[in-house]
């Protein structure tokens, strides 16, 4: 499971993203149960993630594994691990700010440019290359970058 990466953001694993909730093995039958939770309700990558999990488990000798999708508790970007955040930044994607209770949208915290580190940045578009990202631009180094939105 540690090898299954997000198909769109290939530097980060589903475990680091908080998509992978648990992996259990039935002691009697040896059957594996993987529980995952989707990020956005319409995320089109979820089918690919399920297929990738199935493939990884089959390769590890569990072709009859069950993959269960749960919707509660609702996934939050707060579940992304510290390592995951570091990997995102290293890949040029500004990681999400912590969510504030009941209000995901406010933009009070500066988003630092993942390339030069400057906080002098501006949002170009609320929706970027994927539903979970926004498009930003750095006013210091002039480069555009993606930012994972807090959810």
């Amino acid at each position: 499971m540690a090898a299954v990466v997000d198909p769109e953001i290939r530097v980060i694993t589903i475990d680091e993203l908080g998509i992978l909730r648990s992996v259990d093995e039935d002691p009697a039958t040896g059957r594996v149960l993987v529980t995952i939770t989707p990020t956005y309700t319409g995320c089109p990558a979820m089918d690919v993630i399920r297929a990738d999990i199935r493939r990884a488990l089959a390769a590890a000798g569990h072709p009859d594994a069950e993959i269960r999708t749960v919707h509660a508790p609702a996934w939050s970007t707060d579940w992304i691990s510290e390592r995951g955040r570091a990997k995102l930044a290293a890949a040029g994607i500004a990681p999400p700010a912590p969510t504030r209770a009941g209000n995901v949208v406010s933009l009070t915290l500066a988003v630092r440019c993942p390339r030069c580190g400057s906080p002098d940045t501006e949002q170009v578009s609320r929706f970027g290359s994927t539903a979970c990202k926004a498009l930003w631009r750095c006013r210091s180094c002039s480069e555009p970058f993606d930012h994972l939105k807090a959810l």
Partner: protein
Amino acid sequence: MTSLFDYTLGLGDDALVAAQRLGEWTSHAPEMEEDIALANIALDQLGAARLLLTYAGELEGAGRDEDALAYLRDDREFRNCLLVELPNGDFAVTMAKLFFLAAYQLPLYTALAGCGDERLAAIGAKARKESAYHLDHASLWVKRLGDGTEESHRRMQAAVEQVWPYTHELFAAAPAAPVDPATLRADFDTCVDAVLAEATLTRPADGWTPGGGRDGVHTEHLSYLLAEMQVLHRAHPGARW
């Protein structure tokens, strides 16, 4: 009195039809960023629709899954509000529709997250967060267009007045529902009044209040929308990926 199935279907149909209308802007929105934004918002709505329709199918217990419900019902069986089936019109009309829809869906999903039905509560908790972004996006445009040029102000005011009569149906009382829509009116009004004021727009007077969507009585627009949405599925019955 509507059943839980009808109620869930109504919520799912709201999202499904809204997604279909928003998708119509793909490849000809005013600017590229907006093309992406509307497509992403449509995707969020579609995601919620899939969850709600799947649950509705389970509640009905007649073996209908999300696809059967989306593609094989006729317009008289759809339970969406009339607001979402209205044609997109110009960009101001689209933003007025999205603004009022999101200002309704945000308190709706928030309340649903705390309702007694576990499945609806999970869906509500999830959809609520995305709804906040939809409301933010639409509000930005309503303000920008309202408090903009003479032409953008004229079009935005006209759009608000054109769509306003259809907002009343959203709050028709249903005391037995998991969330009584009438209880959402206050939050809606607070949000709408604030944004309209900042946009230098006038809140229309209440007058004509069209309805009937929750009972399957729709405008002439829905059947054309469904024809386009359903034709491919109906042309190949039983087809699978």
